[in-house]
């Protein structure tokens, strides 16, 4: 009875998503096994093959995939490196009364239109813009990075940075001062406390931040369109071109599916690497934790993080 009521309540959302998400995406998967018939057709599925996927792997298109993956990985790591200290500052160092204000300050750029923010960068980076003018006055020569890969990288780091800071802030905030103080009282230094208390507990938040940045970044379309020229080409643009101008739905579909597969694969490899790196640390913790006898402060100082890891 209760279960039936639940299914009835969820049915409208389920039906809507089935009809406007699952079926259309299913069609794209189906198109990707077809081909483009002649100049005027967009897709045909009378002969099924993996040829479109092989076509995606040819050097012309594959270079774009490599480029996107490079921007995705470097951009995500840069967001982590830039955002983590900010999140730590907001959650731990800044006075608690200011915390709400700081969160609001990070949220405003996040909720400002993506396109508008990117256009802001176009104004800043323009070769005849004010930044270029300042650089010329300082004798650094005109700024000439608009429509290049560095400009796209700058744009994506900027655009996705709040998506890294916010989950990291939540994660660091959750650790709370009590455990950190306990660690300090037991003689651990600041780095030890961070590496063995704060980081293990906030790990889910770090993973959430990395995923929240990496997944949309790989599918980015707007930043690459506005700040990147031919050199800053990304998969999102390539997919759009196949559907809008080239009218080759079969190839575009195969590219879209490849994009999803690459995102999944990279995420899996990344998590695998993180897990491997964590193995020695977990082993060491286990070794330290095992001798239960009251050998005083040494065992006690390691137990809280052993429990958390």
């Amino acid at each position, binding site marked *: 009875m209760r279960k039936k009521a639940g299914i009835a309540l969820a049915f409208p959302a389920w039906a809507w998503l089935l009809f406007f998400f699952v079926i259309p995406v299913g069609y794209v998967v189906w198109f990707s096994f077809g081909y483009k018939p002649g100049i005027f057709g967009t897709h045909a599925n009378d002969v099924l093959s993996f040829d479109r996927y092989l076509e995606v792997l040819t050097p012309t298109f594959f270079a774009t995939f490599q480029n996107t993956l490079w921007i995705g990985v470097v951009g995500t790591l840069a967001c982590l490196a830039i955002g983590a200290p900010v999140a730590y500052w907001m959650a731990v160092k800044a006075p608690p009364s200011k915390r709400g204000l700081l969160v609001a300050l990070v949220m405003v750029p996040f909720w*400002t239109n993506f*396109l508008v923010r990117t256009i802001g960068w176009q104004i800043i980076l323009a070769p005849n813009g004010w930044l270029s003018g300042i650089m010329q006055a300082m004798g650094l020569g005109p700024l000439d990075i608009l429509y290049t890969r560095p400009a796209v990288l700058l744009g994506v780091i900027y655009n996705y940075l709040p998506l890294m800071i916010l989950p990291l802030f939540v994660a660091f905030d959750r650790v709370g001062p009590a455990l950190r103080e306990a660690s300090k009282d037991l003689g651990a230094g600041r780095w030890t406390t961070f590496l063995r208390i704060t980081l293990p507990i906030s790990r889910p938040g770090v993973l959430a931040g990395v995923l929240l940045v990496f997944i949309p970044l790989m599918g980015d379309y707007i930043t690459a369109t506005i700040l990147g020229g031919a050199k800053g080409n990304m998969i999102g643009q390539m997919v*759009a071109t196949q559907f809008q101008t080239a009218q080759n739905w079969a190839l575009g579909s195969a590219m879209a599916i490849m994009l999803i597969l690459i995102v999944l694969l990279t995420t899996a490899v990344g998590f695998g690497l993180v897990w491997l790196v964590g193995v020695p640390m977990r082993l060491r913790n286990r070794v330290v934790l095992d001798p239960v006898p009251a050998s005083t402060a040494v065992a006690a100082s390691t137990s809280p993080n052993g429990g958390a890891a």
Partner: protein
Amino acid sequence: MTATDTRTILSAKSTVTPRAKRSRGDLGFTVWGIAVLVFLFLPIAVVVVYSFNVGRLLTSFTHFGFDSFAAIVSNEVVRNAVLVSVQTGFLAALLASVLGTLAGIAMARHPGKWVWWFLVLLLLVSVTPEIVDAVSLLPWLVTLGQDWGLSFFNNGIFRLVIGHSLFSIAVVSYLVRARLIGLDAQLEEASADLYAPPLTTFRRVTLPLAMPAVLAGFLLSFTLSLDNTVIAAFVSVAGSTPWPVYILGAVRTGLRPEIAAVSTIMLVLTLVALAVVALVLKRAGDSAADIARTMAGG
């Protein structure tokens, strides 16, 4: 005994020297944090400043004036684009709130194995890149509207509402589920014990309990829809172009100061909506961290 004493003395000694070091480290964090905040606000500030540019091209500032704002008032295309965006945003938010609230309540109050499957579907919806949603919706809407002759799928606003609702439904479902799971089901049980029919319990107990999450979800959906560019660019039809798509078109043909002026107006609109969300959540008793979690999309 003696070992512990030495340790205490050592640590007492060491707290004296790191004190200065620690405050230097704190200063480093503060400087870095403020620098990043400046970085985050830089392009937004630039767009707002350049919206007061009186010149033919957006990128070269000539002098200060309100011409671009006056140009919007007289430019029917821009006004229409903003109107389409606001209409779409309202309808998409309404749809997402109704469907998402029902689904969220169902997940929180009628648990079972189906919840797991439903969450997988919502997860898929939220991790699929927008560009994939966009390219899959376009052929599907063409099929429905032209091949199957369902002409309401050719309506520009309706197409936009469909495209914008997908992610928002997932967001509202997460929010409502999270809120109700945090609250005990005892109130609803009490209501049932007092002979309230299920529908009355739903209307008088469950819905009011979920209301802060529903409101937050509505406003977030509105903002998400207002900002949606990628899906909108694919599914919109001539005559009902939302403002981000209009701006994207202008990026290709040449940016004029009116673009910055529209952006400034929409920025103010977004900020007002977000301030209301934050206020609703704060009155419902959320901390800064809770609000951050909600606003980052669950």
